């Protein structure tokens, strides 16, 4: 009977094309507005690493200015990051920061170009489950021995080696030769949780090297650096010994006990540092898992919540209109319903028939909604393009499309329940004679 009812729905649409199209428009507009906002929220506020987001923690130490009541800094000083790394108390851990440099391609036809890279420790790749197309990441010895190894992003590998397996090839960076040991698959977690301080919606970096090279080679830093105290000298040593925060620090702690233990370790560390005259603020150390960190950093702006409310209200108004239109349509079929009852339809079968008809309208509205939402998201890209460096992630994806269609069908059926109930409870005898 499902296909029979679907066919009746299509015929019913053809019988009242204007009324039916108005309903599809109402559902489509309401759904598209909601889906645009939903897509933004879904992508901006989604869990970028759902299978282990509760095991990855951002480390926050309050080394801030004791004379102000500003929040604890989001990043760590070099001194603290190195101390935590040396202590090696986490299951896996990494400090990281951005840098920029120049790469000189082997291909003489390509000119040297600037790139944004990231210095990381060996654990970075396994902690964040970074997917590799070729090769792998480096091990701890590369960090310790300052091995000149590099992992390329898929895009940079495409640019330098035409996408071929470049493991074992050499890349010239800042005048030195570096050996390629791995090439990533496309990897752009949204939001870029491991460094929300430097653009949570920026693309991932083009190249990764062992972090100690950043200091050893004094590679140009890129990204936020905040200092509440004067550096007290010039040169790299003075900067490294300063209270300037510029390093992101993440630790993987697989269970609750290890998390409690690590936090205790942080408190002990800060207590010790206080004896040296550092950390003048009250003890305020924290571990934030991925989702807590995204919320704390307000990665999803408040404006999107307001937009969500407005979109839900618009959807509600559109569905209210749909109720009225469905009521007009279904009550207009009273005579047909009377005949169907006379011929053997019971109220339950009429109910199912009209639920499917409402669902059919919802399905068409959902398809229209998807079309409108895809155009709407292009508009959002134009609007947000200046605020968000990269907007490629603003697009309909499979979960959003499925959600749209399910929402459209379910919402229309719910909106249709009253009209359907009214239509199914008519007295057939009243309409058989009148037709």
């Amino acid at each position: 009977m499902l296909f029979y009812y679907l066919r009746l729905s299509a015929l019913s649409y053809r019988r009242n094309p204007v009324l039916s199209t108005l309903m599809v428009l109402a559902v489509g507009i309401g759904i598209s507005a909601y889906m645009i906002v939903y897509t933004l929220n879904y992508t901006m506020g989604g869990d970028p690493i759902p299978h282990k987001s509760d095991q990855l923690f951002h480390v926050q130490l309050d080394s801030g200015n004791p004379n102000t009541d500003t929040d604890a800094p989001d990043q760590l000083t070099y001194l603290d990051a190195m101390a935590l790394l040396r202590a090696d108390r986490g299951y896996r851990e990494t400090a990281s920061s951005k840098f920029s440099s120049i790469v000189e391609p082997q291909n003489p036809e390509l000119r040297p170009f600037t790139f944004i890279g990231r210095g990381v420790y060996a654990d970075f790749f396994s902690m964040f489950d970074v997917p590799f197309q070729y090769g792998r990441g480096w091990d701890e010895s590369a960090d310790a021995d300052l091995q000149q190894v590099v992992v390329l992003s898929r895009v940079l590998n495409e640019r330098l080696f035409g996408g071929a397996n470049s493991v074992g090839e050499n890349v010239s960076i800042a005048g030195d030769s570096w050996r390629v040991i791995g090439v990533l698959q496309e990897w752009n977690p949204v939001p870029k949780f491991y460094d929300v301080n430097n653009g949570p919606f920026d693309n991932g970096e083009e190249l990764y090297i062992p972090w100690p090279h950043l200091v050893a080679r004094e590679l140009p830093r890129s990204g936020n650096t905040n200092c509440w105290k004067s550096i007290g000298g010039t040169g790299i040593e003075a900067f490294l010994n300063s209270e300037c925060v510029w390093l992101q620090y993440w630790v993987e702690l697989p269970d609750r006990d290890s998390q409690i233990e690590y936090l205790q370790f942080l408190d002990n560390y800060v207590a010790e540092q206080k004896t040296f005259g550092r950390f003048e603020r009250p003890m305020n150390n924290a571990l934030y898992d991925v989702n807590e960190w995204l919320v704390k950093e307000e990665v999803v702006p408040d404006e999107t919540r307001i937009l969500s409310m407005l979109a839900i209200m618009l959807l509600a108004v559109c569905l209210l209109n749909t109720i009225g239109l469905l009521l007009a349509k279904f009550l207009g079929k009273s005579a047909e319903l009377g005949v169907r009852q006379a011929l053997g339809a019971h109220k339950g079968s009429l109910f199912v028939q009209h639920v499917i008809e409402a669902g059919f309208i919802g399905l068409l509205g959902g398809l229209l909604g998807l079309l409108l939402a895809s155009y709407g998201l292009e508009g959002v890209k134009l609007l947000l393009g200046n605020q968000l460096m990269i907007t490629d992630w603003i697009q309909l994806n499979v979960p959003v499309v499925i959600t749209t269609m399910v929402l459209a069908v379910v919402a229309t059926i719910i909106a249709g329940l009253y009209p359907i109930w009214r239509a199914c409870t008519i007295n057939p005898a009243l309409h058989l004679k009148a037709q």
Partner: protein
Amino acid sequence: MLDMQNVSKVFRTELVETHALRDFSLKVDEGEFVTITGPSGCGKTTFLNIAGLLENYSSGAYRLDAKDVSDLSDFQRARLRNEKIGFIFQSFNLMPDLNLFDNVDVPLRYRGMKSAERRKRIDAALDAVGLLSRKKHLPAQLSGGQQQRVAIARALVGEPRFLLADEPTGNLDSNTAMGVMELLQEINGQGTTIIMVTHDPELAQASERNIHILDGRISDPETPVTQLQTKAAIPA
């Protein structure tokens, strides 16, 4: 077959109480062709709706095919209608967007019959009314008489035990009306019980028994069909 005892039907609104049927008693045996006549508003259609399980009655007893229908659920009533009763209406009541085949298909759909069996029955029903060759046509492409023939095919396709016809010739010219009447007589001849409401005394004369209703009551249960023309001539 159909047995009504002291059936009454009262329509109530906030202001008015209308007695459509009063202590209405009627027995129709299997294979009979009964016509119901009476002036407008006398309760003919109400009787037909109650007989067809489309309307509940206020009091009395009604047994259809020896089964008390008073406590049946909507589902059971629908099933009984689908299996035992065929309806023919004055204004045909065909569904305008369905072709003839699909119109005749409607009662079989609700019976949950398999596709091949449905197709066989529909073709046979349309063939019986002489419209098989036009089964892909829409109702609007047919004349009134042809539309009523389709409605008859639809009523018969489920092989019901009895047929309820509410002024089936009311919208047809006299020649076409006679054609439809002949078709109904032929169907009755094959054993189907028919109860037909009509205003036309000539058609009533063609039936075996006529029931004349006045103010919701049977005015003269024994009215011989031959006296109908005289009765109809007397102004109400």
